Structure formats: C-alpha cells, structure tokens
C-alpha cells in the first residue's frame, strides 16, 4: 500500500513540477542581472539583484499592473452582479420569449472575439473612448456576461424554488433573500464563475491592445511593449511578469476554499 502511495505522490510531483517550472524560471529570471541572464548553461544559483525592478519603476511600468487590476476587477464584478440578477430572472420566472433570450445570450459566445475587432474599434473610436478604461471594461463585460448568466442560472436552477417560497413565508425581502440565503447557497458556483471570468479577462491581449493607450494599457499589453535598445529585455519582462502574477495569487489564496467545491460541484452528483 505504501509503495503505491509513494509512487503516485512522485507522479503528482512530476506533473505539478512540469507546470510550475516555467513560472519558477521566470521568477528566477526576474532577479538576474544582464550578464547572468544569457549565461549558458543557465544558472539556478546566483546572487539575486533588484536591477530589473528598479528599471520598471523608472519606466513606471507598474502602472500597467494597476491598470490590469482596475479593468479586470470592475469588469468581472459588474459582470457577476448583472449575471446573477439576470440568471435569477431567467431561472425563476416564466414569460414568453424566454428560451429565445437564453439562446441569444449563449450564442454570443459562439463567435470568436476576433470577429469583433473592427466594429468595436470603430464604435469606441467614434464615441471618443479610445484609450479609456471604460472601453475595455465594457468590452470585457460583454464577453464575460453570457457565461456568467449561463453558469449562474445553472446553479440557481439547482436550488428548489421552495427555498424562495419558504423565504417569502419567513418574511425575507428579496434583497435579504439574495444576501442571506441564495448567494451563500450558490457561493462556490459564483466563485467558479468569477475565476473563469478572471482568467478570460486578466490575460486578454487583443482587444486591450487596440482599445488602450500607453497610460491605460494593462500588463498583458505592456509586456509586449517592453523593448530594450537591443531587442527584448528579458530581465524586465520577467520582473513585470512576476509582479503581474501577484494579484492573482493573492485572490486565489483568499478564495481557495470555494474553488474546489465550485469546480467539482457539477461533477460529483
């Protein structure tokens, strides 16, 4: 029995290792100076320096990460809020055209975003919104909302309507019902929605690139633009990437309890 356990633990380590290694490498690279960077064979042990981070500060590159945080958090939170409310309506109420509406919402996700580049650019350009946070936020809400609606609806459907009715009899107002009963009951599901939306938006490059300007560009775009005099400055790239990963790690750390529950909720039935 124990041999089995050891064997599988080793396999697990190997698999995790394969995924973590690139991230680890980048973290190492962030602390290397120019010279150590290009050494072959690559060095794992060296004296870490802060050079790359200093340079980032000089170019105010951290602003990019701040932009990412602003744009992402606003979009996913608004998307989740609207999505939840819409999902509730779609789940609980009957009205003509409901199925059509549902189909329409999901169908918007069936098209690859690249189809939209030109229309969206033209639209925001005309409105004079190029380079604003708002343009990116609106786009991201548009992209994540269908998914938020659809998944939230699935979770709400799971809850029998008699809970709503019991809450009515118990004297809960609708808002209190949401706050104290419904949302806590589907919390893992909502967190799952949050995480999927997060992944979509945080790393998005294409539209962000088009819609932002040098002050509002998020980190995904900023990374592409880091150029040194002689080609890419990998040290700075790595440093920025390191900082870029921090907000996500913090967030995941805070919500990890809900993550496993939310992601496996549909599977283990």
């Amino acid at each position: 029995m124990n041999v089995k356990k050891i064997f599988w633990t080793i396999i697990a380590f190997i698999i995790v290792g394969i995924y973590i290694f690139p991230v680890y490498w980048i973290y190492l690279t962030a602390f290397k100076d120019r010279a150590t960077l290009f050494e072959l064979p690559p060095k794992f042990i060296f004296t870490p320096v802060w050079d790359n981070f200093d340079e980032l500060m000089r170019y105010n590159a951290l602003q990019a990460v701040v932009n990412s945080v602003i744009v992402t958090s606003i979009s996913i939170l608004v998307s989740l809020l609207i999505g939840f409310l819409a999902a509730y309506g779609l789940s609980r109420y009957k009205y003509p055209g409901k199925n059509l509406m549902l189909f329409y919402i999901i169908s918007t996700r069936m098209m690859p975003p690249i189809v939209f580049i030109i229309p969206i650019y033209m639209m925001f350009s005309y409105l004079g919104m190029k380079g604003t946070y708002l343009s990116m936020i609106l786009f991201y809400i548009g992209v994540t909302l269908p998914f938020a609606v659809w998944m939230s609806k699935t979770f709400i459907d799971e809850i029998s309507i008699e809970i709503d009715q019991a809450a009515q009899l118990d004297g809960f107002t609708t808002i209190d019902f949401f706050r104290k009963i419904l949302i806590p009951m589907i919390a893992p599901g909502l967190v799952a929605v949050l995480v999927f939306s997060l992944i979509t938006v945080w790393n998005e490059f294409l539209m962000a690139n088009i819609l932002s300007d040098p002050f509002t560009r998020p980190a995904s775009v900023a990374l592409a633009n880091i150029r040194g005099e002689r080609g890419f400055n990998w040290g700075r790239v790595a440093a920025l990437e390191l900082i870029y990963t921090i907000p996500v790690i913090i967030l995941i750390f805070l919500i990890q309890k809900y993550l496993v529950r939310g992601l496996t909720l549909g599977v283990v039935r």
Partner: protein
Amino acid sequence: MTTIQEYRSESESESSIAVELRNLKVVLGKKVVFEDLNMSFERGRLTVVLGPPGAGKTTLLKTIAGFIDPVEGEVVIEGRVVNDVPPSQRNVSMVFQTLALYPHMTVYENIATPLSTRGFSKEEIDEKVQSLAKLLKITHTLDRKPETLSGGEYQRVAIAKCLIKDAQVYLMDEPFINLDLKIRSELRDEIKRLAETLKKTMIFATPDPSEALALGEKIYVFMEGKIVQFGQGVELYKMPKSLEVATYVGEGLFNIFKGEILRKGSNVTFATEDFSAKIPPDILADVPSEGKYTLVIRPEDIKPRRFAEDSYEFLVKGKVYTVEVLGGDTLVYYELDSGAIVKSLVNTIYRPSTGVEEELYFDPGEVLVFNEKGVPVMKWSKSI
C-alpha cells in the same frame, strides 16, 4: 356507545371555520387542476387532505399559501379574502414537500428565521426556539447544520420552523415521505399531540391512506382535483362512498371482486368465476337488480377456517401464495383457481407453507357492494 353520525356532529357543533375555499379554480400551464372547489377547514383542528400523487394537493396548499393564484374563486383566511395578498402577509406557515431548510445556517438559526426577520427580540426568539426544540426533542441539534441531521431529525426541525411563528394556518405538504415506519409513527403522534396542545389550525396533505387514518379526525379525500369524500377515518374505511375511495383507502389490501349478482327468490348471491357467496339482503339498501357488481371485502373480514368466527360464511378454497407478517398480525395471500389473489388478515403470527390449501370464510355483515358505476348499494343506517 355512539354511532358514527353522533360522533361526528358532536365535534362539529362547537367549532367554526378558519379557512374557506369558495368556487376555486386553479390552472397550471394548460391543465385545470381543480375548479368549482369548495372546502372549509375548522379552526384549531388538524384536517387531512388525502389523495394520490397528482391529485392536486400540493397545488391546493400552495394556493392557500399564496404562491399560486386562482383563476376564479376566493381563498378566505379567518374571514379575510386573501386572493390579492402576497404570501408573506397572509399569516400562513408551511412545511414544504422538499423541506426547504437553509443548509448554510445552523438548526437554531433555521428555526429562528421566521422570527428574526420580523424583528423579534433576541430573548423572545431564544425562548420560543428553546421551548419548541424541547417539545420536538431536538434540543441536541440546535448547533448543527442541516446536512448532519438524520431524516427524522431534519423533519422535526422543519416542523419546529413551521410552528414557531404565530400563524392563522399551518400547512404541511407530505412532510413524512421517505422516512422509516417507526419514525413516521413517532412523528405522527408528535403532530397529533401538537395539534391538541397548541390548538392551531393545521392542514396536512398526504398520499398515504394509513397515515391519513392515523392522523385525522377530518379527512378530505381528494382525487383528480375533486373532493370524493369527507369524513373521519372510520367512515372512509368502513363506509366508502364509491369504489374509487374504497380502492384507494384499501391500499391494495382490500379484496376487490368483480362479478354478478344473482337472485333466487329472496336469496341474493354474488358470483365470480371462483366462488359464489350469499349476501344477507338486510345489508343492501334495495334489493338490487341482477347484473354486474363489485364486491369488496376487507382482509380482516376474511379468515381461514380455524380463525373464523361462528357468524362467518364460507367463501372459497385457496392455496397459500405467500405471507406477510405485520408484527403481531399476519396478512396471508391465497391464490384461487383463476389466479386471483385473496388477502386475509389473521391476528397472530401465522406462517403456513406455500401451496397449502385452506378454506376461507368471510363476515357477511361487513361486505361492501358497488354497482357498475362504482356507487355503493349498501344500507348505511347500520349503527355500529
């Protein structure tokens, strides 16, 4: 010694109506669940609504609670027409079929919600929760979450939550399904005791005839959206008004024989392909014309020879098919030549081997006869 009629009118005279349904029509989707429905529920009493799944019991309760709007007719609670009043303001409390307890709250919090949302003080709430918990024997569960409770405990909590608020009507929708026999009878006794002591108006829906019989003084038999009989358990069991009610209340245990009535002078016989039984004419209202009839004999009114009483008459010979021991009584199944099964209830543990042939006797004074339309042709004035 009282007759059933006397027994009934005594209790009716002192009470008055808490809930009334007048000419009610409810439609769900395209289906008319019931129409022109008139029902009244006494204040301070437990009334049972008995009916098979799909009869409309849940719809009925939800209409009284306000979750379903009637198309026609009125729902009247304590004299007030509440058709336009939302559920939260109808002063109604309900235990749902799926027992809606909030999973993320403790038992204490669950039971307290009807009060905590309405601004009762902490002390008041605590007092009420503790006393109900004691009454329902769930004090030990107050700090736990619903998912950790056993079936019986979960039900008790749901009932406590329903009873904690002061309402004009308490609605219970099949709260005991899926529970073990023993727990069911315990909870049943509990509800009866609560109904007695708290004197609250309760409406209890169930598809289980024995549960209805055990619970209720007043039972509405509700089939396909219509009331087919209303009365006490004893009445439904001994004097069912139609073959439909008899079959349903009999729960598959009543022996139902389809056959013909033949007359020879003043003798009336009921004949099937397996047997021919003499019916004493004095139990029938009029001397029935010859034709197709259905004979219903309850299992406790058929016994194998050694257990039969002197007044019993011979029915038929049957071979033991199987036995079902029900504690101190045994239900013995006999197979007749035609393959029909006859059920006999014996008041002891009796386990003859399969295939043994026995003579079966029946109590002629207890048979029920229904004509082709399912209408009884019995004389009901027999006092018991």
